């Protein structure tokens, strides 16, 4: 994304709390109407970054631009952003209606117009009959929607969401994910979404910035992050990944051949990056990119022979762990449980692992 089309531009931002560096030279651009996620474990700096967008924290150095305007001199109540707090921060002394209309005071609207806008919002969040309820009579999911409505009624340029689904149970969370995505498409506002839940980030986002220790490890689309992680940290944070230590044997225009522990020689497409002969690397493969069979697979596939250590049946899929010679930890394989291609081998039996060339990713050895 080019600088010009960036709607939010974070440029060389650092943040210190005392001597602790919460944000370490972060730069990124977020486009207009994008659903953008900041993903990372707790303490990685994602919430700090969000709070800096809202104006509750100021960068120690660097600058944040929203819609072309530098934000460092703009206090929170003057910024064109609104936030949905992790705790929702619903005003407990006001009813739902007054909560949603809270930010409208300054617009000095006639009462009828105000009511109309609130009704519209109540309709949008699918709580049309809840206007007169007190905040403490609402469930977690309902509060979350009120918090959304309260922010969206002001038509912000950016909506900031701080783990808004974290407090909900699994079923409600999945439902809210869908609704959130749909809502974002309807209103067309830029969403910046903070979460530690990688699945949630993958489901919702247009792009994701994976953060750790105040830095951005990788900024990419969900499939980019999953299929082509740039580092071992990203690869293991998102989903499950098998890693094989290895060394580049040959690299040319047609492909890169890696001698990987346990797998033997694996050749991947040349587009996998610039590697030279002799580089120590990690070869990474997702469990579902590996196939398991009782008999030797057809030619044209990479293959390795191993022992089935254990198998876990999970309903729609099974997880297998296969021990390969020369590898300490077993290789994880995930397979759909279809009626054909059932695996006959029992635990302790011999099996074949196979994969396509494009299944493997080469990562720098850290």
């Amino acid at each position, binding site marked *: 994304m080019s600088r010009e089309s960036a709607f939010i531009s974070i440029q060389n931002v650092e943040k210190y709390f005392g001597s602790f560096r919460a944000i370490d030279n972060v730069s990124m651009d977020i486009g207009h109407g994008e659903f953008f996620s900041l993903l990372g474990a707790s303490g990685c700096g994602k919430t700090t970054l969000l709070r800096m967008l809202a*104006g509750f924290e100021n960068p120690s150095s660097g600058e944040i631009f929203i819609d072309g305007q530098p934000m460092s001199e703009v206090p929170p109540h003057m910024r064109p952003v609104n936030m949905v707090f992790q705790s929702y*921060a*619903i005003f*407990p*002394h006001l009813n739902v209606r007054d909560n949603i209309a809270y*930010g409208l*005071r*300054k617009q000095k609207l006639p009462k009828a117009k105000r009511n109309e806008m609130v009704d519209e919002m109540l309709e949008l969040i699918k709580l049309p009959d809840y206007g007169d309820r007190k905040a*403490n009579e609402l469930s977690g999911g309902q509060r979350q929607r009120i918090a959304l409505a309260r922010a969206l009624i*002001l038509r912000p340029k950016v909506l900031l969401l701080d783990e808004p689904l974290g407090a909900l149970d699994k079923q409600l969370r999945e439902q809210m994910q869908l609704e959130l995505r749909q809502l974002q498409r309807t209103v067309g506002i830029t969403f910046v979404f903070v979460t530690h839940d990688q699945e949630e980030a993958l489901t919702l986002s247009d792009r994701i910035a994976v953060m750790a220790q105040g830095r951005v490890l990788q900024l990419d689309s969900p499939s980019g992050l999953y299929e082509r992680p740039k580092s071992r940290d990203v690869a293991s944070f998102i989903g499950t990944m098998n890693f094989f230590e290895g060394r580049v044997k040959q690299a040319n225009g047609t492909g890169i051949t890696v001698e990987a522990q346990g797998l033997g020689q694996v050749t991947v497409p040349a587009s996998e990056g610039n590697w030279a002969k002799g580089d120590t690397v990690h070869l990474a493969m997702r469990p579902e990119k590996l196939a398991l069979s009782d008999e030797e697979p057809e030619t044209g596939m990479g293959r390795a022979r191993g022992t089935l250590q254990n198998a876990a049946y999970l309903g729609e899929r099974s997880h297998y762990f296969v021990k390969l010679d020369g590898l300490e930890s077993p290789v994880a394989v995930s397979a759909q449980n279809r009626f054909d291609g059932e695996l006959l081998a029992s635990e302790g039996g011999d099996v074949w692992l196979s994969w396509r060339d494009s299944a493997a990713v080469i990562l720098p050895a850290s």
Partner: protein
Amino acid sequence: MRVESYIRKPNRPLQLYAVIFLIVLYVPVLFLPLFSFNDSLYVRFPLEGFTTRWYIDLFQRDAVWNALWNSVRVGASVAVISTIFGIFAAKAITRYRLPGKGPIVSFIMLPLVVPLIIFGVALLVLLSQLGVPLSLYTVAIGHLIICLPFSIAVLIPRFEGFDASIEEASADLGENAWWTFWRVTLPMVGPGVLSSLMLTFTVSFDEFILAFFLTGTQPTLPMYIWGQLRFPQEFPSVLALSSLIIVTSFIIVFLGQWINSGATFAANKEKKA
């Protein structure tokens, strides 16, 4: 048979202790109303018959009404001023990262434990050095010093009881500091404010030692009572007056506590939901 954990088991000695504690605390106080209805000048058993004449006598004295009015004026002003200061102090203590917060808080709370006679003497010395004549104003200044810690002590839990992100949400929705305080903070700490007003009023209303040092020509109610003690024939009226003060103070303090705890309960219920 069910064996109950000692944590839940009713503890007889502890119950007995509680009862004795309450008796020691309040029985002496109960003698005041008892003898205030006694038809005799002298405080002694046996009681000689029921009368309300000491009360009626009380209501007919202008001096009582003047002293009462003085105390109410001082009490109300002190309550309002110390509660306003208390709100700001409690907000600062709970919301901002202050260097040396711990020592500052203990320092503010110190008047609760320093003997009042020391404050009384110190203020008297200071005021006479400055040439300030003693009046109800000087009494109020003295009372402010002892009421502020009470106010802060009541208000700090109210501020701690609600999530700071609620104030942030208000800022985020476009309100500046003043409007956030008016629309969110004050309603949230409202019960604490009411409770603080009541408590500080009571403290000031009942206070004697500082008033003793700092009163000018207009006595507060406790000062009036003190003055009356010299006249034996006035003693039953003093008992009547004291009884009224005790009852009123009890009502105000309990009301304040009840409002505050009711709100705390509601806040907790809301947190759980």
